[in-house]
């Protein structure tokens, strides 16, 4: 019997169902529902903001500025998800979740925010749109799952939209980092040179190149993992009737 590494002992609060529910207790579920609803709403705000700004300006350029603040707020808020895994109320790997959230936060703050010159690039819009659509679907998926009323449409969307959105987001991210490179090199942003009393050096420009290169082994693995999940989750539609 493989129990999750960090189970919760809120058994006093769970309902008296005979099924062994390894999930969070009632209090944790309520909190998670609120969290996921808030996140869904937040990304909807970003989506609406993008649409309104586009309609107002009549062009795709510079839409980043219209949603900069909610983007930073809600993307950074996702750090809580690492905590959720660590505490055990969400049965995901801390390392995997940490990695995914940190890469988003890195792009938001350490690249887009820090290198002002890339904020007007179209590549930023590319990943912002990809993230927005993905997150709206993802957070509503979690909300409905927690309430045990998951519409098939949301499940389908979650495991289908990524096919396009994932490469789209990766393209946007890579192009943005690439655009940032010359400015980072010129200004020596976040870089430390020798000599110094800690005998340490860091070249942010080289680091960014390394990050770009790391997409090569990582992206296919994550993409095909989602593909496999898709087959598993959606593959047996004929056998199960629509439960919800």
């Amino acid at each position, binding site marked *: 019997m*493989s129990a999750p590494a960090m189970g919760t002992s809120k058994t006093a609060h769970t309902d008296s169902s005979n099924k062994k529910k390894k999930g969070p207790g009632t209090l944790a579920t309520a909190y998670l529902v609120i969290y996921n609803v808030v996140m869904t709403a937040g990304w909807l705000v970003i989506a609406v903001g993008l649409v309104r700004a586009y309609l107002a300006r009549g062009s795709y350029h510079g839409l980043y500025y219209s949603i900069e603040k909610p983007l930073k707020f809600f993307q950074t808020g996702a750090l809580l998800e690492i905590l959720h895994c660590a505490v055990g109320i969400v049965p995901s790997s801390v390392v995997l979740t940490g990695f995914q959230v940190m890469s988003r936060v890195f792009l938001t703050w350490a690249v887009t925010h820090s290198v002002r010159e890339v904020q007007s690039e179209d590549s930023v819009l590319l990943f912002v749109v990809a993230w927005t659509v993905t997150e709206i679907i993802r957070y509503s998926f979690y909300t409905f799952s927690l309430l045990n009323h998951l519409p098939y449409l949301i499940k389908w969307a979650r495991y289908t939209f990524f096919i396009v959105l994932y490469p789209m987001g990766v393209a946007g991210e890579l192009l943005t980092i690439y655009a940032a490179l010359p400015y980072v090199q010129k200004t020596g942003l976040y870089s430390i040179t*020798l*000599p*110094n*009393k*800690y*005998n*340490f*050096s860091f070249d942010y420009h080289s680091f960014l190149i390394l990050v770009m290169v790391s997409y090569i082994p990582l992206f296919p693995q994550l993409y095909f993992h989602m593909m496999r999940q898709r087959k598993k989750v959606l593959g047996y539609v004929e056998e199960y009737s629509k439960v919800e």
Partner: protein
Amino acid sequence: MTGSSAGLISLLIGCAASSVLPDWTPCLSLTSLGKAIQTATMKHYEVEILDAKTKDKLCFLDKVEPNATIGEIKSMFHKSHPQWYPARQSIRLDPKGKSLKDEDVLQHLPVGTTATFYFRDLGAQISWVTVFLTEYAGPLLIYLMFYFRVPFIYAPKYDFTSSKHWVVHLACMCHSFHYVKRLLETLFVHRFSHGTMPLRNIFKNCTYYWGFAAWMAYYINHPLYTPPIYGEQQIRLALIVFLFCQIGNFSIHIALRNLRPPGSKTRKIPYPTKNPFTWIFLLVSCPNYTYELGSWLGFTLMTQCLPVAFFTLVGFIQMTVWAKGKHRSYLKEFRDYPALRSPILPFIL
């Protein structure tokens, strides 16, 4: 008539016969006759080995002796499947269960006379000694390459030059001493419980050790290296800490070696010996890790180099994980395990 009484009667008849007809049983002694009868009347086991994942029948062994060990069964399995040498076999009672030990005896296992075992391939294996030697030889040589400022590392005008700071020379001696000590301990001191580990570990481990060694060595031996702020005082203190912990670490390794007779895999509670460096056993389960941390803290202080601090931190985290695991297994295995001991840091961790 039961098997044992039949055996006894046969034995008596045999004794009587050999006394009356001395020429009849010239080669059989009483004991070998007894053994032959014992074997004839012993219940042989049948062993079938299934794949743990697919449940396919991989091997069927009949006439297996009840006192056969898992190790012997592994050898027999290896004969029918030469690609799976015993070190890479995991034999279990349950497909998802724990691996049985080589020393486990067939008749003492909860199996019927037809025993079913599940097999899992552990993958290509490599001996611990090989891994240790490779992962320790790397840092030794790599650091020296940086120390001697081999070409293509620093700017060409620095090739084969020597640092003007004496602490850099001291650091090289300490670092080299540390890894030479580790290599010698691997060859002459340590007694390993397991013979092998998965082959992929050597790539993982070598990347860690070699990578960090290169990273540290680059800065310490850099032409623009900045010596410690508090100069000679800091370096002297650091050296004392380093040497103290090296001796301590070595003392613990010797003490642990002496707990275990050569070639055995016994496990005993370690206790302080006459050597004062082992008195830390009173407070800590894995003082070898404690001393190792101390050595690297000393080296960090000596070089005042942030990458060294990172290496120390990462090593500390890993050793804490190992120490906690070892501490837990000590507690599980020995009822009378001293309560005062912490895994790695006295009273703290």
